[in-house]
């Protein structure tokens, strides 16, 4: 089963691209640049929303644990997916959302459980593409640590370098350690 992901090249869905990179070893996903973001599954089923695409990809590769290890963690992942879509993505005034995120990350290395999940991918992607984030980094130490930790890992560096510049030309200041 080969999946085909088409991305809007002027506004690439970073979270979906990260999910595609992560599942690549178990499910082949081809990525093409085009006009609209779309995951083609069959002629009758296609997904357009970044989070829906990530969810689908995580579910077809359950062994990777991207959707958490149990029902409780799944619910948490859902919480953070919604958080990234409603509180971070293209929202003006990040301070409130970052405060909440900072509190949640004070005792955690990853947002959910003890390993990487969609929650990390989606929230990282939303911050990466946000013009306000670089100027806020200093005031939220826990978010900053988590963000630069993920940014240093393999699929994140690749996706960040390749696509993030197209989305927000200003978001290149996460390298200050």
């Amino acid at each position, binding site marked *: 089963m080969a999946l085909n992901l088409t991305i809007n090249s002027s506004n690439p869905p970073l979270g979906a691209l990260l999910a595609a990179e992560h599942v690549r070893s178990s499910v082949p996903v081809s990525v093409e640049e085009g006009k609209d973001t779309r995951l083609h599954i069959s002629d009758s089923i296609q997904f357009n929303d970044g989070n829906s695409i990530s969810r689908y990809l995580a579910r077809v590769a359950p062994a990777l644990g991207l959707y958490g290890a149990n029902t409780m963690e799944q619910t948490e992942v859902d919480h953070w997916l919604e958080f990234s879509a409603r509180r971070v993505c293209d929202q003006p005034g990040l301070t409130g959302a970052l405060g909440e995120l900072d*509190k949640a990350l*004070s*005792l*955690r*290395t990853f947002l959910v459980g003890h390993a990487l999940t969609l929650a990390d991918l989606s929230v990282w992607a939303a911050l990466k593409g946000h013009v306000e984030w670089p100027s806020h980094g200093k005031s939220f*130490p826990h978010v900053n*640590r*988590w963000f*630069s930790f993920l940014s240093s890992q393999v699929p994140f560096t690749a996706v960040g370098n390749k696509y993030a510049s197209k989305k927000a030309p200003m978001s290149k200041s996460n390298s200050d*350690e």
Partner: protein
Amino acid sequence: MALRELSSLEKYLGLKKPNKYSTQGDKKVPVLQNNNGPPLLGLATIACHLVKEAKRPELLGDTAENRAVVQQWLEYRVTRLDSCTKEDIKIILKDLNLYLQDKVYLAGNQFTVADTLVYYGIHPLMVDLAVQEKEQYVNVTRWFDHIQHYPGVRHHLPPVVVLRNRIYTSRHH
């Protein structure tokens, strides 16, 4: 104590054949009688040897700078943690807390053997901390919880309960 750590480390590294260790002196310094060389003496030395034997050199750091940082923490473990008195504990936790503020692992963004040995060494201190103290040293607690859940590391040690969110949020660290 040190011998159990070394056998846990062997298991983490996936070394099939367990080594036999002896100890030397009052401080029970571990000794490894190596088959093809002189005996190796001391926890950090033997740990580095095991890592090389398992062909996992990245656990000693992947850049010159990281390798130096790993050695620094191995020495810290042996000189500072292993001989710490009751009065030292607060200073150790305070310093470590500050250091870990912006780091996931001791050497930054990469897991190394330093995380394993400092985790083993600080475990007796963490077991005795109250919930409130764990939140006071929030960065140490987060790092500790991450390492104790790191696949294959904990082995011989009992898990320490760590809350997932803070209760005493008004308290500033």
